[in-house]
């Protein structure tokens, strides 16, 4: 096979090229020719096509995402902002923490185990690339209806893949979400979050500077897996008539990654590298062009040096391969021997594949011929930018008009009991331990709190009690009803969950899962959600440090519910003071903090009992969230409360039932006002706390001081969940609640 060299490209301007098959639009292809002053070689075409894909270039989202940068709140915690592999925040005592959430939706639909596994692998390498030791992972997951045949196919594989990879890496999985909804049936969402820790002075960036420095590829050998995975898988929806795309999914090897992590950490500790980049989507194309683009000069790469698993790979395939567990470092020649020695200790393959130079160009040779000669910025950072048209869909007002007001509510005690049990056993609210018990939550020995607590919490290392708490949330039904408010509600819930453990929220990451950006209705949802989130982050004073956009989540023409998953990170001085939602003793006073309004549109009750979605979501109240957080953080810090739980999906009823189940004891609620509203409204900025009678007065004073409404609603104790209200009285044994709560997932997936 002849090599398509840059010289040949210049000589044959009219040669036909498969730009369309590679996902490029005609104007994009024309722009590449304009940049290069000739047609691209096939290798250059491969690089541009994959780097200019939606997944790598954010071409449809960029104009909106700018708001996260434009609306950065005044904060002194941000050390590295958006644009790097992951943002970094100051968490005190010289520690810095980096965290990020990413999607691996499409690969996980095609091949659940490997798709989910390599999702973990990819996000962990992103965190590692910042110079951090990864310390925990989380997985926000969304599936079709729990009893649907395809959910039976994808869920067990995805869960096994997350466990199989994450457990073998030795990273505790401390939380996440599992949500079932019809809209994800043909397009499950597999998001993965990783958090890592380092000292301030150890932050690394993806940059290639210093003429004469060496480009070292290390880790796994390059194979034929995942070729075109980025551009093909992330940029097309699943169509029954399409070609089989199975081979495009990458195959992970967690053992290789574990060894690579330890090898990298040992290299970082000796301070012998200039820059580093992981190889994820778009493989060598991405790593070399980004490193060169961020550096101060150019780079020359000899592609023949790349160690291959399959000797028949073409140079284009080598450039595009997404083989996992690979890293690329920039090393000064004087440090190369030591670098190689450390790699040797860990049996990690490492090869010099190029050098940094001052040419301002990224040049790549293959068998002695030049096959790439491009300005690296045009590949990595100056991709196309689209102002996609967006418009509020006509159906939105109809949706808003169809409120939950007229839905039949429980009247009799029997109906109330039935409603409690139905919700407690519904797939979204049921016990998730069938899934989460497949993840190691203990490894590393720093886990202070893990699922099903409101937020996962780990201390930074065992020389300190300082820790971080993280929660990811999104109620996509709310976002469907109102994407601007829905995104704010996602942030509100994650923020509240972190505060409910006693940690102070300081930063935000997000994974924006939406349908096709070519659909103006989806683009409207996206634009509204980004604006809503950016505005709310500004108000709450928590900067967005990074994130990920996943478009084309749809089956045929039907998009998923807009799902902007928001992750909030908080800091706690001493993890020993954190709050659990388990009721630890009988006779504790239960207090509801926050105001309960009659808000049922988009609620879990409307969804489960009536399969209804319409109206307007609960009204966010960011000031109230901040005040509530202040009360919870202070209460935890002063040891004022014995337990705390945020009130969200399933309302107060679900929150107290979960506290009973986790503490293995009952509770009695004495409600004033409308029992149904008290029990199942999903109004924001609320939490339940349990505390001794002596502490109650102090907490009420604290709440008053922060203008947070507070009401004593009952006590812990007994063996039943008891509700006494003006119009209804009922009681359910905790044992029965547990049976209903824990039976659902095993019944669906244990076979």
């Amino acid at each position, binding site marked *: 096979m002849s090599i398509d060299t840059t010289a040949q490209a210049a000589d044959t301007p009219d040669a036909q090229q498969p730009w369309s098959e590679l996902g490029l639009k005609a104007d994009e292809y024309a722009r590449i020719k304009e940049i290069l002053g000739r047609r691209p070689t096939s290798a250059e075409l491969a690089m541009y096509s994959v780097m200019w894909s939606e997944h790598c270039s954010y071409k449809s989202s960029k104009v909106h995402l700018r708001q996260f940068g434009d609306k950065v709140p005044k904060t002194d915690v941000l050390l590295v902002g958006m644009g790097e592999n992951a943002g970094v925040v100051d968490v005190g005592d010289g520690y810095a923490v980096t965290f990020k959430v990413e999607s691996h939706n499409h690969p996980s639909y095609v091949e659940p185990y490997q798709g989910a596994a390599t999702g973990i692998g990819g996000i962990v390498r992103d965190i590692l690339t910042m110079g951090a030791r990864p310390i925990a992972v989380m997985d926000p997951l969304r599936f079709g209806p729990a009893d649907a045949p395809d959910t039976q196919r994808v869920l067990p594989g995805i869960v*096994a893949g997350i*466990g*199989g990879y994450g*457990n*073998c*890496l*030795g990273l505790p999985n401390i939380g996440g979400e599992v949500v079932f909804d019809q809209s994800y049936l043909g397009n499950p969402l597999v998001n993965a979050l990783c958090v890592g820790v380092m000292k301030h002075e150890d932050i690394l960036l993806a940059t290639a500077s210093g003429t004469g420095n060496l480009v070292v590829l290390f880790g796994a050998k390059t194979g034929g897996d995942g070729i075109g995975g980025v551009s093909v898988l992330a940029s097309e929806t699943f169509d029954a008539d399409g070609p089989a795309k199975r081979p495009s999914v990458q195959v992970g*090897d*967690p*053992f*290789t990654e*574990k*060894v690579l992590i330890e090898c990298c950490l040992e290299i970082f500790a000796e301070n012998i590298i200039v820059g580093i980049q992981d190889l994820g989507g778009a493989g060598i194309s991405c790593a070399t062009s980004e490193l060169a683009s961020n550096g101060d000069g150019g780079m020359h790469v000899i592609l023949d040096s790349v160690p291959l698993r399959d000797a028949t790979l073409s140079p284009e395939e080598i450039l595009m391969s997404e083989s996992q567990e690979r890293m690329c470092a920039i090393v000064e020649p004087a440090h190369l021997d030591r670098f190689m020695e450390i790699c040797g*200790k*860990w*049996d990690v393959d490492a090869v010099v594949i190029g050098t940094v130079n001052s040419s301002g160009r990224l040049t790549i040779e293959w068998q002695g011929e030049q096959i790439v000669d491009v300005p690296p910025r045009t590949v990595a950072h100056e991709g196309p930018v689209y102002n996609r048209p967006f418009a509020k869909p006509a159906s939105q007002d109809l949706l808003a008009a169809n409120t939950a007001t007229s839905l039949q509510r429980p009247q009799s005690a029997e109906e109330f009991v039935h409603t409690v049990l139905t919700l407690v056993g519904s797939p979204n609210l049921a016990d998730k331990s069938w899934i989460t*018990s*497949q*993840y*190691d*939550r*203990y*490894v*590393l*020995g*720093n*886990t*202070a709190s893990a699922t099903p607590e409101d937020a996962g919490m780990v*201390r930074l290392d*065992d020389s300190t009690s300082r820790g971080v708490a993280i929660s990811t949330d999104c109620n996509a039904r709310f976002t469907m009803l109102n994407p601007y408010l829905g995104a704010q509600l996602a942030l509100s819930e994650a923020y509240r969950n972190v505060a409910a453990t006693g940690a102070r929220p300081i930063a935000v990451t997000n994974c924006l899962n939406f349908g096709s950006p070519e659909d103006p209705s989806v683009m409207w949802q996206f634009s509204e959600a980004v604006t809503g989130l950016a505005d709310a982050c500004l108000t709450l004073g928590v900067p967005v440090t990074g994130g990920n956009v996943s478009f084309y989540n749809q089956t045929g023409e039907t998009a998923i519910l807009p799902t902007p998953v928001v992750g909030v990170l908080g800091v706690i001085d001493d*993890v*020993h003071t954190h709050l659990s939602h388990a009721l630890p003793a009988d006779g504790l006073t239960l207090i509801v903090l926050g105001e309960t309004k009659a808000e049922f549109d988009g609620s879990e009750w409307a969804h489960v009992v009536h399969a209804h979605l319409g109206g307007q979501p609960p009204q966010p109240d960011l000031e109230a969230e901040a005040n509530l957080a202040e009360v919870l953080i202070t209460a935890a810090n002063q040891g004022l409360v014995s337990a705390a739980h945020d009130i969200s999906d399933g309302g107060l009823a679900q929150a107290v039932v979960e506290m009973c189940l986790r503490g293995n004891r009952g509770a009695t609620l004495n409600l004033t006002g409308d029992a149904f509203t008290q029990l199942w409204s999903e109004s924001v900025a609320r939490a339940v706390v349990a505390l001794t009678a002596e502490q109650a007065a102090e907490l009420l004073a604290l709440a008053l001081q922060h203008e947070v409404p507070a009401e004593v609603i009952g006590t812990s104790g007994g063996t039943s969940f008891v509700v006494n209200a003006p119009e209804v009285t009922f009681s359910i044994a905790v044992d029965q609640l547990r049976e209903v709560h824990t039976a659902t997932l095993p019944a669906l997936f*244990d076979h």
Partner: protein
Amino acid sequence: MSSRIGVVTFPGSLDDRDAQRAIAIAGGEPVALWHGTTNLSGIDAVVLPGGFSYGDYLRAGAIARFSPIMSSVIDAAKSGMPVFGICNGFQVLCESHLLPGALTRNDHLHFICRDQKLRIENTTSAFTSGFDTNQEIVIPLKNGEGSYIADERTLDELEATGRIIARYVDVNPNGSRRDIAGITNEAGNVVGLMPHPEHAVEAGFGPSLDGLAFFTSVLSTLVNAS
């Protein structure tokens, strides 16, 4: 002078730092040992930690068993040095034939992580002497291949000679024969345990402090022996 207890790190070991921490909390001096050496660095006892040595390729523990350090560990074990294999370390001890039987895939085929109740049935081994007979404890269990299996004669012999050091209580989490969670050799110096005591040694991190006694046991064993 506190006893020096080695913790071997194989490629893919995960709970090695946790084992070191547990030893330190118990009052011992942890010594990191690299799999690629045969030098035991003058240690008094050794822990083979949990994890996925060599990615569990071939069989869990099957490749680690051939690491250079294991030849030294096997020799030392035969001379009476206390050796404690936790989870993957238990698998390595079985592969090394320092303990009988094998650990196979969990009967339900899933990895499982749970707070597990155990009953300590042998309080004479190097790592369980600090427990009361039939004491019940709760420590984390986390494994994919934790189902203990051996032929009936071996199982009978383990029972008859009191070499079952711990059994699962309430729930058998992986299909282990006769609810076996851990065993010891005839001499009582080599102990394998599937659950993870090193994750139950510190208040606030783990379900209890019940794991600490495994480590304090060996420290008193060493003091009494010297």
